[in-house]
C-alpha cells in the first residue's frame, strides 16, 4: 500500500500560506503605504482649503458641506482599495497553499491532477 504523510502535507500547506501571505503582504503593503499616505495628506490639505474658502465667504455653507462630504467619500474610496488589496493577497496565499498540496498529491500519485 502506498503511504501518505498527512502531517507533512498539511505543514507544507500552512507554511506556503504563511510565506506567501507575509512576503506578498509586505510587498503590496509597501506599494500602498506611500500612495495612501500621499493621498491622505492631500485630503487634509483640501479640508484646510475648504475651511479657508468658507471663512472668506468664497463658497456657501451648502457648497462647503458638499465638498466635505466628497472628501469623506474619497477616504472611503482609498480604504476600499486597501481592503481589495488585502483580498488579493489572501486569495494568492490560499491558492499557493492549495497548489502546494496539489504538487504533493501529484508526486504521491505519479500523475498530474488538473
Amino acid at each position, binding site marked *: 500500500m502506498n503511504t501518505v504523510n498527512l502531517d507533512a502535507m498539511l505543514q507544507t500547506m500552512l507554511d506556503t500560506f504563511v510565506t506567501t501571505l507575509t512576503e506578498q503582504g509586505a510587498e503590496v503593503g509597501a506599494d500602498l503605504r506611500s500612495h495612501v499616505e500621499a493621498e491622505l495628506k492631500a485630503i487634509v490639505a*483640501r479640508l484646510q482649503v475648504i475651511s479657508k474658502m468658507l471663512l472668506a465667504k*468664497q463658497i456657501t455653507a451648502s457648497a462647503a458641506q*458638499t465638498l466635505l462630504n*466628497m472628501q469623506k467619500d*474619497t477616504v472611503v474610496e482609498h480604504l476600499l*482599495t486597501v481592503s*481589495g*488589496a488585502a483580498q*488579493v*493577497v489572501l486569495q494568492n496565499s490560499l491558492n499557493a497553499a492549495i497548489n502546494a498540496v496539489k504538487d504533493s498529491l501529484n508526486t504521491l500519485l505519479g500523475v498530474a491532477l488538473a
Partner: protein
Amino acid sequence: MKTLLRAPYGIFLLSLLFLLSSCTIELISPYNPPLVSALQSLQNQVNTILITCEHKLGTKAAAYENFEQSYIDTQVVLTDLISSAKAIPHNDITTKQLTLLLDAINHMQSLHQQGFRSKQEIQVLKETINDDFTAIYELQDIKQAYSGGHAA
C-alpha cells in the same frame, strides 16, 4: 517521511485535500481592462468640464446649461459601468468604488448648478474627483500586478 494511512479520519482528510486541490479560490474579481479604459475616457470628460469652467469662470461659457448634456452622458456611462460591475462575481469593492464616483459626479453637478464661485473651488473639486479615479485604478493595478495578470 511517509507514514501509513490507517485511521478513517486520515482517509477523510486525504479526500478533502484531493477535493481542495482541484479548485482555485477566488475572493476578488480579476483585473478588468475594459473598465480601466472606460474610466480613462470618463475621467477625460469630467476634466474637460472642470478645466473649461476654470478658464471661463465668470463668463456665460461656464454656465451649467452649457454642460448639462456632458453630465448626462457621464452619468449614463457610469451607471452602465456599475451595472456591468454588479454582474461580475466577487466584484463588490469595485462596484462600491464606482457608486462613490457617481455620487462625486452628482455632487459636482449640484455645485455647478449653484454656480462655481472661484477657481480654488474648482481646483478642490478637480483634485477630489481625480483622487477618486486614482483609488479605482490603484486597485486594478494591484490586481494586474499580483494576480498573474488574469483579465476579466
